[in-house]
């Protein structure tokens, strides 16, 4: 196990070590103190534990790595992640998993506004609630919310599927509730299992795109 102490080492030291010829498969980062850009651009199948709170873009563009933050994270955790897993033991600020293409993002606490904005294939599972405009223009992947969702959920959604157990304050343009069929219950159970959450899939509702805004029609102008 390799430990990097950010009370003495710099963020550059950490990322450079993670981008190099990595021999150690397990890494521990101590004293992160909310620093930005921790463990970004990692392209190795390594395990990274960040013991404390992280700032913006923690684990940004992650590939292959399993990153666990034992604390809260700032804006854009796992932004544009391609693969691997990012787990936040605490809560996340806004734009969690923004534009992420793949992998799994788990937030055990709450996530702020625009969770999963423009997501492109990632799976996001949130143990708590999410803020407004989540999944705005989301394109692909799945978002699971065990708590509540704020205003305008799934506004201008493309093909992302959203599962919410609690209350949805309001749905955004072109986002509708859809039937929970057997395949969706199965899909949701698998996501909950991977995230390590014990919840009954039957207690969730599914939301998706009505697909009425996929091609511009002037009759829909009020929805834009």
């Amino acid at each position: 196990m390799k430990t990097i102490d950010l009370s003495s080492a710099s963020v550059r030291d950490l990322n450079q070590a993670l981008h190099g010829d990595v021999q150690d498969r397990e890494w521990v980062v101590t004293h992160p103190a909310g620093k930005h850009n921790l463990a970004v651009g990692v392209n190795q199948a390594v395990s990274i534990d960040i013991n404390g709170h992280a700032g913006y873009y923690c684990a940004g563009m992650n590939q292959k790595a399993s990153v666990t933050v034992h604390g809260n994270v700032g804006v854009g955790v796992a932004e544009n992640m391609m693969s691997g897993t990012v787990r936040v033991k605490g809560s996340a600020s806004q734009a969690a998993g923004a534009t992420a293409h793949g992998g799994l993002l788990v937030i055990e606490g709450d996530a702020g506004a625009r969770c999963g904005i423009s997501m492109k294939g990632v799976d996001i599972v949130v143990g708590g609630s999410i803020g407004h405009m989540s999944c705005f223009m989301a394109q692909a992947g799945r978002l699971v919310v065990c708590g509540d969702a704020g205003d305008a959920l799934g506004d201008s959604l493309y093909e992302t599927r959203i599962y919410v157990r609690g209350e949805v304050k309001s749905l955004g343009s072109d986002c509708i509730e859809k039937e929970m069929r057997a395949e969706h219950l199965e899909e949701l159970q698998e996501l909950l299992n991977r995230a390590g959450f014990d919840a009954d899939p039957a207690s969730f509702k599914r939301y998706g795109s009505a697909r009425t805004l996929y091609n511009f029609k002037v009759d829909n102008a009020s929805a834009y």
Partner: protein
Amino acid sequence: MSEKHTPVLRESATFDRLTIQEIQRAAETGIYDIRGGGTKRKLPHFDDLLLLGASVSRYPLEGYREKCGTDVVLGTRFAKKPIHLKIPVTIAGMSFGALSANAKEALGRGASIAGTSTTTGDGGMTPEERGQSQHLVYQYLPSRYGMNPDDLRKADAIEIVLGQGAKPGGGGMLLGMKVTERVAGMRTLPVGVDQRSACRHPDWTGPDDLAIKIAELREITDWEKPIYVKIGASRPYYDVKLAVKAGADVIVLDGMQGGTAATQEVFIEHVGIPILPAIPQAVQALQEMGMHRKVQLIVSGGIRNGADVAKAMALGADAVAIGTAALVALGDNHPRLDDELKKIGSAAGYYDDWQNGRDPAGITTQDPELSKRLDPVEAGRRLANYLRVLVLEAQTMARACGKSHLHNLDPEDLVALTVEAAAMARVPLAGTSWIPGQGY
């Protein structure tokens, strides 16, 4: 017997035929007009400036004998690997999707022959353009279509796009007719769906966040690549200052004459400012920060010939970028296509329906049959020729001003033909020492 008079038809200056036609079109369709290209109306431009060739008080250099350097190094502020270009004319970002794969390849070929860079666009990097581009700038756009860290690492520089001259503040749109299987796959969207590109980045909300985003991209690429920040010209003085403060290596400033693949006509013609007044504001911002020539300035938006290049550099740019002109050099709007263009309601020299994907030149299309018409090798050669001409023309003018490098041109080599241009470019009105707003 009274004499019959034929009445003289008088067109309204306010409601001219074009305006009337647009009102009729709007009434019929209920939707604004969307097109590609750039502004069509006359705007203050480099034509309103003149270069002062040497005579007695200045000493010219001998054309074709005495050297006039053209190279430029971009990204000298922080990047471990700045880009060294042979010429200060680069190719602006244009997406695969808006353009065919052959067109993207041709841009890469032409730029590489001439010793300069080309730039990706919305939708990601194609193997064709990476393979043929000696220097490739990877755009980091609000939509993040096709964005991935492998391509970031393959790029020679990263350009964070905050705006575009044709539509500062506006997003993009690739209409469904151009969204083929390949384009859709690169953008993770269904085939045939209109693809809206966001007007702002999804995970930051202001200049403080931009500083962190720039740092993130530097960390991911181990501080090797220059980070450009592209701004659509509207408030360049403030935008440049904030971008430099956020850590940009290079500023790309795109004036309102800049092109677009598709956007609202009203947006193209009425939002942003021309590149002429934008450059002095940007240069002032850089000078006040002590960063002029340290953070390089690339300007674009209607660059057409070597005079434009020389004048932009005299105003303080380090390099220029071309977009629409590069497409014309590849073969867009060529007279030999006139008959075909007329069949789709246009004509050579007028074609701007790039959003429809029916470009008979095979450039602004995803139709496989049309795309095949563009030979990327031959088109690349044409682009390289055009780039050479731009540089030769600019060198000729710089030598006439007594300058041994294009970067030695400065505002004292310029005068303005109109009071308006003098005020905007901050150079004297021709024949006077008067710069409006700066006294005598």
